[in-house]
């Protein structure tokens, strides 16, 4: 199974990967990264911070502009991909295995995932 077979995607181009134990990995889809172009700056939250579904939890900047990143489900940050802030260009090469943004512990219930799409459907939606 490839990475994208396992993720759910939001309309605002974040992905959610279920790691079991009520924990999830959150990142941006390859489509989002391609649209942004060269990534030059990333501002990530700190472990322990809590966000509601839809809250801005991070900011990403390409050469052209700054964009907000929204949390696809409510959760508490348990791990941050620290290396990314030093090397944000990693995201242009790989936004999945190495370029994930944060890991969270879900604080809401599963119904929050209702509006998320499987990767194939998300891709279709884009066309």
């Amino acid at each position, binding site marked *: 199974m490839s990475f994208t077979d396992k993720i759910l995607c939001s309309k605002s181009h974040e992905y959610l990967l279920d790691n079991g134990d009520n924990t999830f990995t959150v990142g941006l889809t390859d489509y989002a990264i391609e*649209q942004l*172009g*060269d990534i*030059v*700056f990333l*501002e990530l939250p700190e472990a322990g911070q809590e966000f509601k579904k839809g809250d801005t939890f991070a*900011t990403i*900047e*390409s*050469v*052209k*502009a*700054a964009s907000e990143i929204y949390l696809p489900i409510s959760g508490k940050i348990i791990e941050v991909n620290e290396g990314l802030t030093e090397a944000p260009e990693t995201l*242009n090469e790989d936004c999945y295995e190495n370029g994930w943004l944060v890991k969270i512990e879900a604080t809401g219930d599963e119904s929050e995932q209702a509006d998320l799409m499987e990767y194939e459907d998300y891709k279709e939606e884009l066309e």
Partner: protein
Amino acid sequence: MTKETYLHDKHIQLKAKMVDFAGWSMPVQYTSIIEEHKTVRENVGLFDVSHMGEVFVSGKDSVEFLNKIVPQNISKLNYEKAVYCQLPNTKGGLIDDLIIYKLGINNYLIICNASRIDEDLNWMVRNKRGFDVKIDNQSHNYSLLAVQGPKAVLLMQKMGLNTNQESFTIKAAKIAGIKVLISRTGYTGEDGFEILVENEYSEFLWDKILEEGEEFGIKPIGLGARDTLRLEAALHLYGNDLDENTTPVEAGLSWSIPKDKKDDYNGKDVIMNQLQNGVEKRLVGLKMLDKSIARHGYDVYFNGEKIGIITSGAPSPTLGENIALAYVKNIENICTGTIVQVMIREKLHNAEVVKRPFVAKRNRIKL
């Protein structure tokens, strides 16, 4: 309806990412803004800037008319020379910035911003009363290609052009058998040429330049890199750094304004007064002291007080630092080396006032 240049199909074939710019569908990047930026700084790049406006001014009162609408002295503009100009309103605020070329006696070409063609034309028509002058908007008939970078001169020489041509001059020439007007100007801070060609030959010329330029490492360059290139050179972008509430003196363009011009022109009293007595706000260059990026519209602070606003900001691929242009209150203790703060997502980030341009210009490379 979004307008397309005659090179639109070429951009699609090259898999450019297209964006709307001033009502035109334009390539923002082909591969990567940073890569394209470096291509222009190190080798040579080709830009489609056909969205820009071309307005011809002719008639026996051409000089008097142009002298009324720009602060620059058109009486002193010689045959085949170009001059960077502004189009002020009666309060000195800028309707546009432009380049005026003298093509012949009572025959001038104005190249203006795509986003301002309509405003410029309206303003010119309003100002032409009493002048025997013809204003002919030919924007829809011409394509404009820019060849920019240190190797532009080698490429143009290979294509048969006389590269002794001086900076800020325009000449009729033939490239690949096509009649063009070629100007040694640009918007990148690099040496380069801008080629005005009739629409029907633009695709042929585009392909030919890319083909002949291959040995010099040529690449097509989008508007994204055009923006970072011009920002490093501290060249103003209309709509960001210039608008109808900003005078050329405030914008740091006093160098372009003759102090001895006799003719009256729109906004002259305001501009002359500012030249003599100073301005309340002025343009400065900033360099961020951390990794944050100042963007258009962010506030600038000094000693806890809001003193200005960022008008352009981006990473500088050449410097590896983040740079910006800002308008700040003209207070004495803000000078080169002063540390100010930029409010970014509710936090203040230090920035240093630095000299403009951020990257030294290379206007003409002699062979």
